[in-house]
């Protein structure tokens, strides 16, 4: 560290420049602070980085993953149990990590959800409704120390920042036709109207309605009409281009930090963004009482120290946890004793895909549809929206229909009787490509005593620092939860009257398989809670250990939800930013007394 170049001290340093980093950069520069943001990936802007037609390149972005974190430099190791050897995640499969300005907010699908009210008090809700014994002993779920009502204004604000399209289901307590009847009361309508359903979603909606379910438009962070957000930044309507998830949006339509907030920050004299800056450590004072800044390697490889009064940790969930562990902040979680908190409660999602195979007279046009746009959803079997008394599990799944694109290398859905190669494969792709509709589930994985994150003892990154190690496998609760949701999906798909259907789903006994894409909605490891005994951060996302360190992102989630995480993590960030401005900046110190 003695060789580190010392940079001029600033009021706040931001580590990681995706959604939450951008949200905090705006809030803190609004308050007049001098802010430096460090992003380890490259600068990225709609033009020229996402320009048409170069962006419409499935091989480059969808398969090779040019927007993702280069695994050659840093990855994670994975093992199923504490008794196994962990090995590196050497190639992309199960999840894809963002990189560069905008982070995963560039290549997401724009499925923007709020949490259900009960998701935020999940343990007490389940105990109240089903009794304490209903929660398995090894399940370590807990409540958020903040309520839906407290977060609602911030959910609402973020939806307006993104120009989210959708139909309200519960407006100030009044159920609304065409929306999600299970959502918590919202203070306002969605800022833009929903996009019409794409063909797969239209057929799903019809079948689901016939079976008595309430189908509604997927809330989508791509406006349904031309839109100007509260910051004066303009977004265009989505054209269903088919190159959304895994791609940057060439149309200024999909909400990303670039298309919603960043234009405001550019040119602010109290803001500086340094790309290619790889943070390796959060620095503390001698007594371990406060953070003093961060250590990072700049673009040229020079080690630098950035002193700051306030440290904002807003990297991806996995990286937040790794940086805490590398920095020796807090106590690492130990699954043997249950002691320690950093790395605790890693969770994931269990997803399934059911394909409806129609005859060649039915035109699904799978290439028309981009990310969340034009999808339809039912929410009956998510969260605790239905009675679990006799089901033997807790939690649930979203059920949604619609293609996020129909890109042929990644998204060709073939029935199991079509071989993987040869003349019959060639005939099969022709027969099924344009005539198959996907219906998916995305289910919550609970947190468990044996699922956690720690530093790997063997493998290192490009700088020789330990990789993060993930210890994770499925549990009985999730096999049951997913099987239950999938049975409902299969019933709906039958009602869609395809020639046949087939399902991809983890079955009891299957281990977590890192080879195939499932979800990038990884949660926990630096969880939010009511007391330093049960959490790493308090309700304002402030570290219990170092009061001038704030940690944002899905690392805060005590357990996962069936929804996509961006709405909830943005809500928590805005809730925190408000408290920072109204209270912390006037009188820095712990915002919650332990």
């Amino acid at each position: 560290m003695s060789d580190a170049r010392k940079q001029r001290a600033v009021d706040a340093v931001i580590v990681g420049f995706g959604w939450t980093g951008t949200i905090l950069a705006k809030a803190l520069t609004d308050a007049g602070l001098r802010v430096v943001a460090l992003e380890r990936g490259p600068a990225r802007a709609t033009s020229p980085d996402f320009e048409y037609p170069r962006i419409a390149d499935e091989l480059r972005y969808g398969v090779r993953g040019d927007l993702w974190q280069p695994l050659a430099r840093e990855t994670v190791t994975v093992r199923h149990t504490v008794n196994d050897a962990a090995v590196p995640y050497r190639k992309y499969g199960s999840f894809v990590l963002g990189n560069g300005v905008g982070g995963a907010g560039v290549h997401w699908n724009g499925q923007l959800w709020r949490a259900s009210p009960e998701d935020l008090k999940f343990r007490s809700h389940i105990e109240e409704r089903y009794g304490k014994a209903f929660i398995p002993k090894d399940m370590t779920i807990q409540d958020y120390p903040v309520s839906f009502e407290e977060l609602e204004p911030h959910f609402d604000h973020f939806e307006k920042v993104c120009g989210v399209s959708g139909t309200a289901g519960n407006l100030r307590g009044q159920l609304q036709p065409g929306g999600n009847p299970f959502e918590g009361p919202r203070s306002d309508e969605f800022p833009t109207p929903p996009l019409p359903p794409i063909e797969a979603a239209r057929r799903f909606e019809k079948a689901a309605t016939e079976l008595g379910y309430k189908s509604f438009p997927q809330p989508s962070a791509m406006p349904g009409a031309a839109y100007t957000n509260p910051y004066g930044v303009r977004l265009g309507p989505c054209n269903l281009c088919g190159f959304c998830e895994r791609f940057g949006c060439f149309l200024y339509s999909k909400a990303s930090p670039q298309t919603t907030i960043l234009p405001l920050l550019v040119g602010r004299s109290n803001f500086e963004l340094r790309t290619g800056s790889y943070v390796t450590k959060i620095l503390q004072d001698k007594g371990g009482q406060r953070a003093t800044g961060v250590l990072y390697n700049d673009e040229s490889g020079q080690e630098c120290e950035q002193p700051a009064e306030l440290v904002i940790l807003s990297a991806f969930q996995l990286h937040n946890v790794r940086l805490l562990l590398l920095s020796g902040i807090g106590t690492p979680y130990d699954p043997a004793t249950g002691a320690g908190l950093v790395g605790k409660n890693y969770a994931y999602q269990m997803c399934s895909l059911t394909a409806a195979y129609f005859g060649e007279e039915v035109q699904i046009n799978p290439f028309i549809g981009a990310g969340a746009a034009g999808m339809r959803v039912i929410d009956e079997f998510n969260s605790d929206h239905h009675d679990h008394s006799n089901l033997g599990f807790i939690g649930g799944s979203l059920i949604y229909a619609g293609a996020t694109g129909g890109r042929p290398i990644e998204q060709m859905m073939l029935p199991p009787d079509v071989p993987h190669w040869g003349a019959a494969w060639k005939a099969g792709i022709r027969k099924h490509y344009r005539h198959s509709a996907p219906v998916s589930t995305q289910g919550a994985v609970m947190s468990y005593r044996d699922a956690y994150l720690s530093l790997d003892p063997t493998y290192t990154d490009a700088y020789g620092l330990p990789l993060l190690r993930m210890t994770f496998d499925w549990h009985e609760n999730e096999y049951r939860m997913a099987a239950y949701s999938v049975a409902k999906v299969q019933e709906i798909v039958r009602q869609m009257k395809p020639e046949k259907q087939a399902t991809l789903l983890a079955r009891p006994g299957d281990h977590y398989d890192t080879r195939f894409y499932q979800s990038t909605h990884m949660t926990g490891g630096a969880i939010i809670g009511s007391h330093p005994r049960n959490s790493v951060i308090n309700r304002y996302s402030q570290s219990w250990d170092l009061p001038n360190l704030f940690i944002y992102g899905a690392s805060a989630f005590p357990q996962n939800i069936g929804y996509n995480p961006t709405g909830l993590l943005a809500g928590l960030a805005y809730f925190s930013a408000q408290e920072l401005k109204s209270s912390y900046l006037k009188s820095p110190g712990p915002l919650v007394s332990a």
Partner: protein
Amino acid sequence: MDRRRFILAGGPAFALTSLAASGCHQRTLPKEASYSPSFFRPVEWAFINAAVARLIPAEGAGPGALEARVPEFIDRQMELPYGHGAYFYLKGPFLTNIAPTLGYQLRYTPREIYRLGIEDANTTARQLYGRDFPSLAASDQDQFLGAMEKGGLSFSRVPSAVFFAQLLANTKEGYFADPLYGGNRNMVAWRWIGFPGARADFTDWIDRPGRPYPYGPVSIGGRS
């Protein structure tokens, strides 16, 4: 666009209308020079051409891998960072007997997988049939590839199933990727399945779900 090739390839008839709709004029492509591989040596090139011709054969309707120029695609990929393993974490130690669900755990780059895999495949073919893989009858080649896929052939370095998976993945990439990478020649694979390629604008179709999409593909390079 080469209309004769397109009709023989059996592409969707609606694509013809796209010429008028997009204002493109029919043109004759210059006669192409045959491709000289950069990475693959002659024996390896023969293997690649023979193997992809079985993975996506010419027989039946629709373009085969050779017509789509898949071998050229794979060769060009080998010279890119991808071929050199730049996209993978390749630091050791490399543990064996790891659950397959934890993914690829070998030290080899794609270039090495091909080099070692082809050598072992030809050695094994000579042991079983007395000839290199490219000289086998098509039915024997299919059987051989099927055995590789199941990991049923004992290769000395790269397991046969790993080599097969690499080959099949790159073959499908070369079949479906934008023509700028050297495969999917004349967008034959896109025409075959009815994927409109890099059009990326369905504004006119948002309120017409379920109607047949009338336009043929365009590539990033602007070909239609």
